[in-house]
């Protein structure tokens, strides 16, 4: 399955992935309207410290502890894509406790959200990948993509 891979070597720490993620999942077609004067809750988040930076989003694990731990059945995995049904989520935070990467976070309404590779929104392909200015985030089919390994 195609996955998102990130390279801290190429990450500029610009946080554009966070903005494009929030925009892609906002349901709006106007980026300024969607993001202006709002505290954004992106599904990809940049970690940074003393010159190192990299973005982290759901790894879509083959053995997804979030799915197996979810108390409501809101999280499920189909064909390797892990999605959340917000209608069934009760914000118990068990997935937050289970995810080893820390990639499931509360949405604007407090229920949980996660990267769904933009396959369920209007963009249809990961916006973080599409708009990363330095190709630090890539979307490939290999477990060890050559492009990011350099």
């Amino acid at each position, binding site marked *: 399955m195609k996955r998102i891979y990130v390279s801290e070597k190429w990450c500029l720490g610009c946080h554009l992935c966070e903005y494009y993620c929030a925009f892609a999942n906002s349901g709006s077609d106007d980026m300024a309207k969607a993001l202006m004067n709002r505290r954004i809750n992106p599904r990809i988040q940049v970690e940074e410290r003393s010159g190192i930076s990299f973005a982290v989003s759901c790894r879509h694990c083959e053995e997804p502890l979030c799915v197996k731990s979810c108390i409501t059945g809101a999280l499920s995995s189909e064909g390797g894509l892990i999605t959340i049904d917000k209608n069934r989520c009760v914000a118990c935070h068990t997935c*937050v406790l289970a995810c080893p*990467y820390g990639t499931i976070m509360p949405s604007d309404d407090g229920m949980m959200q996660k990267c769904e590779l933009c396959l369920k929104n209007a963009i249809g392909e990961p916006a973080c990948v599409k708009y990363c200015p330095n190709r630090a985030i890539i979307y490939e089919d290999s477990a060890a993509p050559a492009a990011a390994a350099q």
Partner: protein
Amino acid sequence: MKTKQYLIIGNSAAAIGCVEGIRQLDKTGAVTIVSREAHHTYSRPLISYLLSGKTDRQRMRYRDADFYETYGVAPLLGRTALSLDPAQKTIALDDGQTLPYDKLLVATGSVPFVPPMEGLDLVSKKFTFLSLDDADALAAAVTADSRVLIVGAGLIGLKCAEGLSGQAGSLTVVDLAPQILPSVLDEGAAALVQAHIERQGVRFLLSISAARFENGAAHLTDGSTVPFDVLVLAVGVRPSVSLAREAGAAVGRGLITDEYMRTNLPGVYAAGDCTESFDITSGERKPLALLPNAYLQGETAGLHMAGGGKPFCTAMPMNAVGFWGLHIVSAGSYAGDAYIKCEGEHYRKLVCRDNLLQGFILIGDVLRAGIYTALIRDRVPIDTIDFELIKDKPGLIAFSRRDRQKKLGVKPA
């Protein structure tokens, strides 16, 4: 080849984990679920959300309505297994049926523990709070004027209080322990959460118990009396082991299994609240009546029944729960050197021992807590990461560049 007969007693997380485990490897074997409860599989922890109206019967299903069909499961709901014959490999049901099995999962869960208390039989409106039927019965009994007395300040008692909040005249919780949530929180965290819950109008009576009941009143050990209209007994739960024990299964503090969830009876597995687990953080064998644990055990059993799988040996206490908007997550055990930070309603405690993170409690800010959980689960030596850096804010940045690259899926250069 003869079709393999899988039989599962139980219909909750462990049972569903088992079905999903079996079907990863065996698409054709016959799978039957026998459940005492006449309901589609539902999420047990959601019964308090049902009381408060934050979920409904459709949304509290643990799996989609077509789950049994999709997974090729024959559900026998509302049927009780009366006995297990390990020599004949059959179980007998309350309707007279005898069901054969090649592989059996005992996922009988837990039952409310109600200690003998004088006069309890005189109380007409008394309830336990573990099943959907319990929740329905309680909801039918509580009115806007009801004075509700809950015995037990653990997860069940307090979630029940939250579920009834705003729907009852008053809510009082009594517990013999000096603090609330003794199995989850330390003293400091418990005091903080207690204050939060008290602000919602719940009254606590701690370090005290009911000496005697009459219908409508509890007489406490300090001589005081608490009048009530509705009594909820939430003292605790015990693994439901009698069916398997009578068949000769080994029982400690719950059904004893190996790391593939096999009991000592051939072809008989056990998973979920009816079992005891080996807690990797305390080294103790004890029941861990927790939904994620139940699912993982059930899946492990299912995979092994179908001829594959791998051992499950990472069990530990893990809780994520919220009360009136205050989130609490915790994992592991708390014996060791503690780092504690407390600010307002935020509380953070990390406990290390033997160069390993052994446990944590986070209240308020619980974001990315799973990074801590993974440190415990994977037994990551603290001195191989920048632990200081993530004491207040968990992140993958604490790992070495090589480990970060491994985690984020990129081949090391």
